[in-house]
């Protein structure tokens, strides 16, 4: 549609920023580079808002916001039907994502001006940020699954580059490697899933896939593997890609380590945007999942639920504040995943609520992006002040950093689900959807919500209250560049819950008025308050209750502290098994057996050469004997054969 012709700038500009900063950045001053990047992003943000405004003010067709594809050109044609196109697809969720990404990214850009001040590689940092923004925007506006995969890989790479930004630090390098390889492994599943899906449906196009014109079930009918139908395999494998990016159990191990990156990066990539790509992916293909492969959706629910609980438990005992936030992120994303998983149909109106989870999930995605970015940026400000990630180095900071304190508290309240902060509304919808599906999931998720409130306030109290740690120099409030984003996000967090989200994003596209189910809401508020109260009791004032409690649940605590030893298992499998029992033997095999065979041929030639030298004895008469016997032998053979 022509009114969105300018939308390509949203993609082009960050790309240009990346190229400019990447190629010429080292010649610029820090200030120029930072300002260039930020102002570029500002333009994009404005454009994204204009797009959103225009899109959502468009007249609805049959009560639905039309899907708009302003650009879609052929990039690479595989076959007649399988074509990778690059284009821009605007529909409610992609427009919503555009807003989220640009907003958070802009905040992070501004914030980084202060946070990264004076770092070497400042220009590089902005270049990578631009690259990430570009990739992420490309991902959300993808018109087809292959375009999504392309940008999916690109966000992975930019995440790799940003996590490893402090490349002289061994742990950062290791973390970046881990993040990339784990997600890459998940992407393998994604790729195979795409291949399967496209093989059966003969298309990559999201529109074709989701508007019901091709049916995966029909085309893949009768094909099964290990008792599971090909359609389910395809969709489950695609989800595997999403699970990797969204750090779902058991592919979550990279995310806590990814906190080695600069904190704004964590806020942008590992909290607000990239990690929700998995959710976005499932949401994109939601019609396929919900209509054609509900069994996969069930599987998704289970994975999400396990992850949510697991991450929440682990988050309760971590001492590195960024890790707490990381596990909290995992847990919250799991909420979104569960919300999608519990959907039973596309319907979301007065007759049926089967699609409520979809709306809830997207809503939570939106709110979570804001308050989690806020949390991370706040944490960044704190780390900036105390130069440490450990809780033990903090405590009592509320006096020194009032703005940070307030904004952090708002975010904590939001994530804990206390009204009227945004988190309450979205989480409430999720719980409602879960209860809709079955009471089991509802209770389970409510429990996790309670844990969320607990660990968030444990974090909050440990940082801002409790015993004051010894500081080498007094912590001070962050500079303006850092506080402005905090304040902005805090404002958003406060009011985002009142956005009539259901009017914009629903599975069918039909408008839906969110109405709070007060039973569910009440329960969730109660649980949240219990959690907060517990945290207050334990952590508000310095005391030995936490230690005692940890002692009373020693083994659980240890296991949780070590994240249930998943890293160790992975390390064991990769280093001890794959490296030692696959790679090394193959390398050995290659050098000694394959190569050995080749060398053996050479050696055998030499050996033969050495051992037949006696033939050439130098003695005339033995020559004659050989001569004669040679002739006789030939004659004999001829006589025998003829």
């Amino acid at each position, binding site marked *: 549609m022509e009114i969105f012709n300018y939308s390509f700038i949203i993609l082009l500009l960050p790309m240009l920023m990346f190229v400019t900063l990447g190629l010429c950045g080292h010649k610029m001053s820090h200030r120029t580079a930072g300002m260039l990047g930020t102002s570029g992003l500002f333009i994009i943000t404005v454009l994204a808002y204009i797009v959103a405004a225009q899109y959502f003010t468009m007249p609805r067709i049959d009560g639905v916001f039309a899907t708009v594809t302003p650009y879609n050109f052929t990039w690479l044609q595989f076959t007649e039907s399988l074509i990778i196109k690059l284009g821009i697809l605007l529909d409610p969720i992609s427009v919503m994502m555009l807003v989220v990404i640009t907003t958070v990214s802009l905040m992070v850009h501004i914030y980084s001006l202060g946070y990264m001040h004076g770092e070497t590689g400042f220009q590089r940092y902005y270049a990578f940020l631009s690259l990430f923004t570009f990739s992420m925007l490309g991902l959300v506006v993808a018109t087809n699954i292959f375009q999504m995969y392309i940008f999916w890989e690109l966000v992975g790479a930019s995440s790799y580059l940003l996590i490893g930004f402090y490349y002289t630090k061994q742990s950062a390098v290791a973390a970046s490697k881990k993040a990339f390889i784990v997600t890459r492994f998940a992407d393998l599943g994604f790729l195979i899933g795409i291949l399967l899906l496209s093989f059966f449906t003969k298309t990559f196009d999201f529109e074709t896939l989701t508007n019901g014109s091709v049916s995966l079930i029909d085309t893949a009918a009768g094909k099964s593997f290990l008792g599971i139908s090909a359609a389910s395999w395809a969709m489950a494998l695609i989800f595997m890609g999403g699970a990797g990016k969204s750090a779902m159990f058991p592919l979550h191990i990279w995310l806590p380590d990814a906190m080695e990156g600069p904190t704004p990066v964590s806020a942008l990539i590992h909290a607000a945007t990239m990690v929700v790509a998995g959710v976005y992916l499932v949401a994109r293909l939601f019609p396929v999942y919900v209509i054609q492969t509900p069994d996969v959706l069930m599987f998704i629910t289970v994975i999400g639920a396990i992850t949510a609980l697991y991450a929440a438990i682990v988050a309760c005992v971590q001492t590195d504040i960024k890790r707490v936030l990381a596990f909290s992120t995992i847990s919250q994303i799991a909420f979104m995943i569960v919300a999608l998983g519990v959907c039973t149909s596309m319907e979301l109106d007065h007759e049926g609520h089967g699609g409520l989870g979809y709306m809830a999930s997207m809503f939570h995605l939106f709110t979570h992006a804001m308050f989690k970015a806020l949390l991370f940026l706040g944490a960044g400000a704190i780390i900036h002040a105390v130069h440490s990630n450990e809780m033990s180095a903090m405590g009592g900071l509320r006096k020194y950093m009032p703005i940070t304190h307030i904004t952090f508290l708002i975010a904590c309240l939001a994530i804990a689900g206390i009204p009227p902060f945004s988190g309450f509304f979205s989480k409430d919808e999720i719980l409602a959807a879960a209860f809709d599906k079955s009471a089991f999931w509802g209770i389970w998720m409510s429990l996790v919500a309670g844990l969320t409130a607990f660990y968030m306030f444990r974090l909050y109290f440990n940082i801002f209250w409790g015993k004051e740690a010894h500081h080498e120099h007094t912590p001070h409030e962050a500079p303006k560049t850092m506080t402005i984003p905090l304040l902005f996000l805090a404002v958003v967090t406060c009011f985002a819950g009142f956005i009539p989200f259901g009017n914009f994003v629903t599975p069918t596209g039909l408008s839906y008025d969110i109405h709070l189910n007060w039973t569910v809401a009440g329960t969730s508020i109660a649980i949240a308050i219990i959690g907060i109260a517990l945290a207050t009791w334990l952590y508000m004032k310095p005391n030995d209750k936490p230690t005692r409690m940890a002692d009373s649940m020693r083994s659980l605590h240890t296991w949780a502290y070590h994240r249930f030893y998943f890293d160790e298992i992975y390390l064991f499998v990769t280093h001890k098994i794959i490296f030692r029992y696959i790679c090394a033997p193959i390398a050995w095999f290659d050098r000694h057996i394959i190569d050995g065979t080749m060398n053996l041929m050479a050696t055998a030639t030499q050996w033969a050469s050495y051992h037949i030298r006696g033939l050439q004895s130098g003695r005339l*008469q*033995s020559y004659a*004997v050989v001569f*004669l*016997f040679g002739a*006789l032998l030939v*004659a*004999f053979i001829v*006589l025998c054969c003829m």
Partner: protein
Amino acid sequence: MEQVAGQIIFFLLSAVIVICSILAVTSRRILRAATYLLFVLFATAGFYFQLDYHFLGAVQITIYAGGIVVLFVFAILLTSKLGEKSDKISSTKRGWGLLAAISGAALCLYTLCTHDFFPSQYAAGGEWDMKAIGHMLMGMDKYQYLLPFEAISVLLLACIIGGIMIARKR
């Protein structure tokens, strides 16, 4: 009668050839070996006479006995002391020799004996006329041998030059 005499002469010659051949290759005195060779060559000439190839027999005696054996004797006298006995042959060497000789002989005899020679009868053509032989040697047609005759002269010349070149001191 004549046939019987011929047979007796044949067996006599054969015996001389066989015995002297063996002695020629086993005698440890080199001069004796040369002498046995001479006997063999004479007996061969006898064969030729018996087969009515008198000219060939004469050539055999002239060239071999008159030429080659004399050459041998000169060479032997030049290179070895009189009465010198050569060393004993090692048994492996003899074993190889015997094996070579016997297996070779066996194979050749087998093929010769199994072959069905097609006229397989002695055709008493009698003695060829010397003039005819001379014409054949000098003729240019089929079954005439001017060209080999000329060619062998080149060979002999070459051997003379070569032999002199090697044998002379300078």
